[in-house]
């Protein structure tokens, strides 16, 4: 789960990292009041789960109350990579001497946390990684040993020459690792980490993703979830234990298993169609999950046909069939439902369907081809 900049900054602060003050608001008038507390120039920043805020006009400097109002007013409601801005963060503008990057993530290859620093901060680190990978210094951390002092010091030394800045950065790197571990993060970054003309090191922007599997341990972080700006269908899917990702096509897909769900989308494309979504109903099926899945799929107005591709393993075909029948009773579904049902309890499932005058394919290619043929394009 991604959290907002201001939330990530709260976690950094809790771990002792110097972060300039800041408050969020949904109201331009309130933004003006906040800015007054900070005096002088402030930065107004869109709080959305998306990169590239700056380029999209989501970050503005403002020197006067009028400018603050105007900036907040323009940014609130802006759409950035499909996300609508509902809140802005007001924070004092800082004098900057240098900008660096500092991040920690889980590295697949070493199966360990990796701390990365780069003295070119404030820019997209993935671009830097592609263009000049040698400018990024990486350190693989032994997860059982944790980040050692000299390791943090060595990384800090790659960012600064001045001993006082190195000292401050060493502490910040250790604190960031602490934050990473004690928040169940899968990624945490400060970009930029600045040094000021007065010789202070501070975190100016922060990003953080928390491992969904750890969220249950951290209710205070779970509470950060921005349900308000999450699409309704995703909230519903999450709460029902389904995996759902909306796409732009018209073939609604309902599949058990993530790999098969992706392969089904790919096959829709192969046969000339466009998948409307990724949807995995998960392993241990029950009829209610199928009803919810159909609610979610049909909430997408683009969907012209609904394709079930079920290969029963832990999922039982009869459960899925029951769910489909139940959903048809509860929901008004206009789109045709094309079903493939094979594997565990296949016969029982087919019986349930045929009792309601429905039938099912057993081959994946057949069912996908048929579904695509039902669409208008």
């Amino acid at each position, binding site marked *: 789960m991604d959290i907002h900049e201001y939330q990530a900054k709260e976690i950094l602060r809790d771990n002792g990292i110097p972060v300039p003050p800041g408050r969020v608001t949904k109201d331009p008038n309130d933004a003006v009041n906040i800015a007054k507390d900070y005096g002088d120039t402030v930065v107004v920043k869109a709080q959305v789960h998306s990169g590239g805020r700056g380029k999209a006009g989501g970050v503005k400097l403002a020197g006067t109350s009028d400018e603050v109002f105007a900036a907040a007013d323009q940014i609130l409601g802006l759409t950035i990579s499909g996300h609508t801005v509902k809140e802005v963060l007001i924070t004092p503008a800082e004098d900057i001497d240098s900008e660096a990057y500092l991040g920690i993530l*889980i590295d*697949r*290859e070493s*199966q*360990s*946390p990796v701390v990365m620093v780069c003295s070119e901060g404030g820019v997209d680190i*993935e671009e830097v990684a*592609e263009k000049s990978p040698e400018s990024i210094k990486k350190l693989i951390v*032994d*997860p*059982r040993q944790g980040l050692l002092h000299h390791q943090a010091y060595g990384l800090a030394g790659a960012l600064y020459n001045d001993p006082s800045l190195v000292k401050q950065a060493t502490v910040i790197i250790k604190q960031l690792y602490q934050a990473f*571990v004690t928040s*169940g*993060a*899968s990624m945490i970054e400060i970009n930029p980490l600045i040094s000021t003309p007065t010789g202070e090191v501070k975190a100016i922007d922060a990003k953080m993703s928390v*491992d*969904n*599997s*750890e969220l*249950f341990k951290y209710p205070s972080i779970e509470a950060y979830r921005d349900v308000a700006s999450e699409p309704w269908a995703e909230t519903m899917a999450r709460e029902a234990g389904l*995996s759902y*990702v909306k*796409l732009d096509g018209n073939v609604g897909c309902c*599949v*058990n*298993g*993530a*790999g*098969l*769900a*992706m*392969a089904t*989308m*790919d*096959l*829709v*494309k*192969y046969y000339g169609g466009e*998948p409307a979504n*990724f949807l*995995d109903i998960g*392993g*241990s099926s029950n009829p209610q999950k199928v009803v919810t899945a159909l609610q979610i799929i049909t909430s997408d107005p683009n969907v012209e046909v609904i394709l079930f591709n079920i*290969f*029963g*393993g*832990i*999922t039982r075909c009869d459960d899925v069939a029951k769910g489909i029948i139940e959903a048809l009773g509860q929901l008004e579904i206009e789109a045709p439902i094309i079903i493939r049902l*094979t*594997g*565990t309890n296949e016969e029982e499932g087919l019986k349930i369907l045929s009792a309601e005058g429905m039938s099912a394919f057993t*081959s*994946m*290619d057949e069912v996908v081809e048929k579904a695509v043929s039902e669409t208008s394009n």
Partner: protein
Amino acid sequence: MSIFVDSKTRLLVQGITGRDGSFHTTEMIRYGTNVVGGVTPGKGGMSFKGPDDQKIPIYNTVEEAVADTGANTSVIYVPPAFAAGAMEEAVDSGVALVVAITEGVPVQAMTKIHAFAQDRGVRILGPNCPGVISPGKAKVGIIPEQIVMPGPIGVISRSGTLTYEAVINLTKEGIGQTTCVGIGGDPLIGTSFIDCLTQFKGDEETEAIVMIGEIGGTDEQDAAEWISDNLDIPVVGFIAGQTAPPGRQMGHAGAIISGSSGTAEEKMRCFEKNGVRVAARPIDIVELVREALD
């Protein structure tokens, strides 16, 4: 022959009294797997009733179970909140192979467990995997027995049901398998494609290999290069997620395209470059395997 599991497998089931654990224990025993014991803390001394009224002893700890049964393999069906602890316990117990079915094990916990397993020389398969089946010999996990048959193909996959899809197509055409391995859909897994390929390389009966990958990470690319350098037998590959958008997790925690890396396109290109035959659809795997065997 086969890899990872066979008739010498002496299996322990961690979470044997749970809903999934008990169901699949029965399935595994029915298939002929030698299930020697189960572990459920607090239920030590009781026994699990298998098919035909076998009594499988239950232990409080894996340590006791291994001491008493000589188990060499453990499979984990415990809920996510306890799965990391169960894996640590298994790694610490002396078994050689730990198969972790559970989905939702925290990734930070996995970093520590993998380091521990490496120290102890224990192989972990998974987590978040369907397990492994050597047709006609033994099954550890949840892969349905109906879809497999003995034969010359090794199958390795990051996903569950998509594996079933590929394997049943082979089986329907009379092409059997030495072993089918689901390596799991998490970003940090204990056994990689290369680990499986290395094993299949040493397995005389495996004549061709099917590799089913998906978006996210570089495991498939690394495997392709390894194949080009090390493997003589043919490999057929498939990648799921050609239509997946970047930055969104597609069900599996590990299935996510970050930036331009880990795309299906990149992986398929890498397969082709290294001599792995690429199937456009799951059904095409059968034909490519048939060609490869000829």
